[in-house]
């Protein structure tokens, strides 16, 4: 490669820059980790250290067993709520989006242009414009302050992105495969089931997991729609916890925040390689 001919100073400079980037990206994460292992005495010290002088798991114990937020909602209870909502959202959006994504990928007429246009357009509108009418609609249906209502909203909210991902995965499957099967006399449904579905399976899993992460992390819509403490999702619980914090409570807050991030971080690591490939394949060439 051309790079090998470059002077050594360039390489040194590049490594220095890379280290700089890593420090910028990692230091808030390390600090969060550090605070989560500090005891209350160390947290009120005048000059904090990055490495805790006395490591303790008390914050994690408090986060998991104590009641940390509003009322007596525990972190685990909120985590269960989040799992329910995010799981249902992931399954529903993927099911609803799959057939449409196939059409978007395989036709180039008016409908698919309209569909792709809508996907882009939906990114432009501020959520406030859509949440007020949805709030009114869900209120008439007695679905505000319920997980069902939140899931409905999440499905429509995640759908554009899910459609975009799925259709790019469908595009990755050679058309010839389908055509061969259909020329042999298979029906469209058979082709979808026996040719497309197996090849698309990894893409479907990645998309569903991404929808899960998105719903798991979402805050604004949950803040608007949910009032009852026992329906609280994790981001809501954490945000309310911030409101009541005192300096001594920083430890449990840090531990709770880390625990709440763990599931989405793990899932994200699993799908990461597939995700960036799927998102970018259509975008860069287009």
């Amino acid at each position, binding site marked *: 490669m051309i790079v090998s001919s470059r002077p050594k100073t360039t390489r040194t400079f590049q490594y220095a820059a890379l280290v700089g980037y890593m420090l910028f990206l990692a230091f808030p994460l390390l600090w969060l980790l550090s605070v989560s292992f500090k005891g209350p005495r160390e947290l009120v010290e005048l000059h904090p250290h990055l490495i805790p002088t006395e490591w303790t798991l008390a914050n994690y114990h408090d986060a998991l067993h104590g009641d940390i937020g509003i009322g007596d909602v525990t972190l685990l209870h909120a985590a269960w709520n989040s799992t329910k909502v995010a799981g249902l959202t992931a399954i529903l959006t993927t099911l609803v989006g799959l057939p449409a994504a196939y059409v978007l990928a395989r036709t180039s007429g008016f409908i698919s242009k309209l569909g792709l246009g809508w996907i882009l357009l939906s990114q432009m509108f501020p959520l406030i414009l859509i949440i007020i009418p949805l709030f009114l609609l869900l209120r008439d249906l007695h679905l505000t302050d319920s997980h069902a209502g939140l899931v409905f909203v999440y*499905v429509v909210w995640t759908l554009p992105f899910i459609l975009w991902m799925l259709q790019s995965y469908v595009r990755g499957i050679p058309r010839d495969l389908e055509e061969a099967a259909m020329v042999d006399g298979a029906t469209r449904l058979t082709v979808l089931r026996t040719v497309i579905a197996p090849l698309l399976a990894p893409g479907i899993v990645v998309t569903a997991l991404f929808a899960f992460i998105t719903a798991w992390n979402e805050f604004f819509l949950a803040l608007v729609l949910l009032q009852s403490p026992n329906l609280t999702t994790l981001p809501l619980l954490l945000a309310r916890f911030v409101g009541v914090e005192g300096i001594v409570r920083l430890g449990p807050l840090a531990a709770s925040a880390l625990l709440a991030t763990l599931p989405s971080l793990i899932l*994200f690591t699993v799908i*990461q390689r597939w995700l960036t490939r799927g998102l970018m394949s259509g975008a860069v060439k287009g």
Partner: protein
Amino acid sequence: MRIGRGGPRSRAGVALSGREAFLLLIPAMVPILVLSVAPLVRGIYLGFTDSRAGFGVKTSYIGLENFRRLIHDSLFVNSFKIGLIWAGAVTFIQFCLALGLALLLSQPLRARWLARSLALVPWAMPPVVVGIMWKLVFQPQAGVINELLYRAHLPGSNIDWLSDFTWALPAVILVGVWAGMPQTTVALLAGVQSISDDLQEAAAVDGATTLQRFWTITLPQLRPVIVAIVTLDLIWNFNSFGLVYVLTLGGPGHATELPMLFAYDQAFKFGAFGYAAALGDAMVLVIATILVFTIRGRLKDVTR
């Protein structure tokens, strides 16, 4: 769905028929129309009404009254000013940093996998957690920033960054930059990697310096990706909510009150649905303006 069975098909029969396409679209189209398009249209319309929260309240059309009030509402003007500063600054700084990182990551450097993974982490974190994390970083006594400033004997180690009128906005901008690094870096990295090596090598053989190659090959080739990601970042950031809500709630005073925070308060604290919707309409106007500029730039590229 009835599809003819048996008998080999002609190649023309392989394409999706209009009816098939329609049937396959229905499961997605119904929720989109009922729960997305219709509410959106109604939301835009609500901006021209006096709609308020609460059951059985009568809503009537009041024309441009909300917008007349908005223009004279200093808090609204302030929130849009903050919103534009925030979106512009975050997008610009993020773009410069992400471009640098993307160029580095496309080099055969050791440990770049680590930098790449680190750059993706914010993507997986809930904005609320990012907010909490940076609150701990900025914490006046227990925070790491002030401790570092103190140890380096630099001024400012007593500042309560997120409650300070001068420093709150720069502080949340820094957090915004950190939180948005993944998407921008990934997009630019994909762009950098799609540039053919041949061009670069030919230029290198011709004696072009690294800097010359960057200006004459890398940047022009990246242009479409840059326009796309910068536009999206501007819009996403202008519409952003959760991060700043957790960090400052829009304070101190209204120093970090982004448009969405202002709209949320109007709608769900004070129940002024019509007014908040009008605010949303105004946000759409700003976003449309941004789009017109970038799309115009894009068209110029094509016709050039």
